[in-house]
Every structure is written in C-alpha cells, then in structure tokens.
C-alpha cells in the first residue's frame, strides 16, 4: 500500500483528471518491474526490483513514449520542481503568457502537467516540429504547444477587465474556497472545462449508453436486512431445501 501511495503522489490529481483513467490502471501501466518473485510457494521474502524515479515530461505516464523515456537503462538528470501548495490553474482558465515570443498574449489552458508545474496554453508558445521525414516523403510540420511554468511564466487573467493579475485563495461567506484577484478584488470563477474529461464535457450532460446503469437505479437503496446469508437467500428464491444433516466431526 505504501509503494502505491508513493507512486500515486508522483502524478498530480489534475494531470490525470482529464484522462478519466482509474488509479490502478495508471500505476500498473507506469511501473516497470525488472524482477519479482515468481508465482508459487516461495521460501524467501518477495523482492520487487523496479524503477522509483521517473522522468516526467510531456508524455502521459500510461503512454508508450513515457515507457521508452523511462526504460530500464535510461537515466536522467534531476529535475528541480518548486513545490506548490495549492494548484490554481485549471483547464479552461484564461491566462496571459509572460515570456517568449507570445509574450503579452492571452489564451486558454489546455493541458496540465502538475508534476513539472507546467500548463499548455492553446495556440500560444508553439514550435513547429517536423514529423515522419523519410527518403520519399518530406515530412509534416506539426504545431506543438510548448509548456509554460505556472510559477513565473504564466499569469491568471481577471475576467472583469481581461488583464493579468496576481491572485489568492479565499473563502466566501458560504464557505467555498475561491480564487480572488488581489488587484481588483473580483472572484475568478472556476472554468466549466475544469470538470471536462475525455469521456464527457460535464457529468450532467453525459449521455447514458446501453451498458450503463442509469443514475436513478444506482442511487436506489434496495437492501433489506435479513438473517440469511447470500447463498441462503438464493436457495429460498429458487426453492432448494437443505434437509441433510451433516455427520458429526471431531477435532483432535
């Protein structure tokens, strides 16, 4: 349990929110076990040799490129990341870029990489990358957004006057924690895209599929406590009657 907790802490909550993948799958896809006790009765304690420090980049941990970047022989330099107490940049937030050739322009946050304190802004801070060049093929150019550091390369934009502003987390009268712009004092609301995942835009607009249990059916509590085990209940329902009396057994 402790090992999985260490692994879990490596990937920030907002980095994996959009993918909507269960934690169990992410851990299983991420881990690269070099050696582990074979299955069967063992007479020595279990040893598991696996990588503990991963190189977090633009590729998500469950992808093949991440696996390649973190394959057994590959080592990487230590990446120093400033620990942020409260993550404040969400998908759909309007931000202003402060560095690079797109300095001064505003855009909307597209991807979050919490482990490196990065966000990608849609259409800004891009580079052109040539892909798929072969002898008979010139290759295609792709415009890829490069990540920006949340601490000093990007600033939240106050929606009331559309200017970059420093902000704080404060509590409303209802007890809700919100971001407040320190310059104007206006609340910066949570963007609706923050809830978005690859499977749905918002939970309430999700269209129920044939194999999905409907929300009303899930919420119903139909449990009636009875003095029966599950098997006894089934026996009674089907009509199986147990009349046999088991012979006495003794423990010596």
């Amino acid at each position: 349990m402790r090992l999985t907790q260490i692994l879990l802490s490596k990937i920030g909550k907002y980095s994996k929110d959009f993918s909507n993948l269960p934690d169990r799958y992410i851990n299983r896809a991420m881990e690269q076990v070099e050696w582990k006790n074979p299955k069967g009765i063992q007479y020595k304690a279990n040893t598991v040799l696996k990588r503990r420090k991963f190189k977090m980049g633009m590729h998500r941990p469950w992808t093949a490129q991440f696996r390649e970047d973190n394959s057994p022989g590959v080592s990487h330099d230590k990446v120093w990341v400033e620990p942020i107490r409260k993550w404040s940049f969400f998908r759909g937030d309007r931000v202003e870029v402060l560095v690079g050739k797109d300095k001064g322009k505003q855009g909307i946050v597209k991807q979050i990489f919490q482990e490196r304190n990065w966000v990608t802004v849609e259409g800004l801070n891009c580079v052109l990358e040539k892909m798929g060049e072969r002898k008979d093929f010139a290759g295609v150019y792709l415009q890829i957004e490069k990540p920006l550091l949340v601490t000093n390369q990007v600033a939240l934009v106050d929606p009331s006057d559309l200017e970059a502003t420093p902000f704080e987390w404060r509590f409303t009268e209802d007890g809700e924690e919100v971001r407040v712009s320190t310059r104007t004092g206006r609340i910066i609301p949570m963007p609706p895209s923050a809830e978005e995942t690859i499977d749905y835009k918002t939970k309430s607009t999700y269209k129920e599929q044939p194999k999905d249990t409907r929300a009303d059916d899930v919420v119903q509590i139909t449990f009636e406590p009875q003095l029966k085990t599950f098997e006894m209940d089934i026996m009674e329902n089907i009509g199986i009657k147990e009349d046999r009396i088991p012979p006495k057994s003794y423990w010596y």
Partner: protein
Amino acid sequence: MSCVNLFFKRGISTSCARYGKRNFRKFPLFNKRGSKIFKEQRKDPNYDLPHDKRGVRDIGYNDQDGKFVLIPEKVPEIIVPDLKDFPLKPYVSYRTPDVIQSEFTAQDLFNVVYAPKIAKDFQEEKLNDDGSPVEPSPEELMTSEEARIKAEQTGTDLFTQGC
C-alpha cells in the same frame, strides 16, 4: 584475397550456459519442469512437493486401484438468474451523485431482527423471571445443536468466507 567458407558447420557453444546466471533460490518447479527422477517421485501423493494443481480444485479422488472417483457435490454448479429487464448493468453512468451509506454492522442486524420482539415482550411483560420470553419466536427457540447443524449445511459462510 579472402577465401570463402564453402563448408557450413554448426557449432554448439556450451560457454554461454557456464557464464550465465544460475540463481536457483527462487525456482518453482511446476508440472513439466524438473528431472525425470523428480517427476517420478512427485507422483507419490505423500511426497513433500506434490503435483501443482495451479489453483484448480479436484472434483473427486483416486481410490486404491488408481481409478478416479467423482464426488458430485464437488462439481461446481453455477446458478445464474435470468437477467431480462434487470435495471443494473455492468457500468455505472457518470451522472450518478455520491451515495454515502454507513457500515452495516452485526449490531444493526440484531436491531432489525431480534430487538423489536425483545422490546415488545418487555413492555407487555411477557418475559419470565430469568429473562427468557414466554412466547418465543422461531429464532429464539433454536437450540445450540440446531445451530451447529445449520452452520454446517449448505448456505453457511462460517468457514468459507464467501468463496
């Protein structure tokens, strides 16, 4: 001028195995692994390392002649009810709100099954001097012998832990 090797010979290199790892500490010997003598020894059911069933349970046993005797009770019978028009499906819709239910303990079960009758008997003064009820319900009439028989019949989960 270099000469071409027209005679193709195959070689078996034995040095690879000699240089290789020989870690036999964690070396589970499943059914086709091991030497001939080891496998012969394994056929004896009293041998220390018996034949590995790989998680499958036997549905009978071998008697003295070596013939297999089937025990019908050990053959698993999977009872699946008809799932037509059943509202619950394999997946859950993303729309569902969080349902928080407190743990259902043995005390809660007692409160539902036994407690109302005991309280009613006490209020109507239908209890004897030692506390036993004057009009016992079927659950209250059960003796320890009956309870032992019930705990060993089909449907019990006393020692099976739900498997």
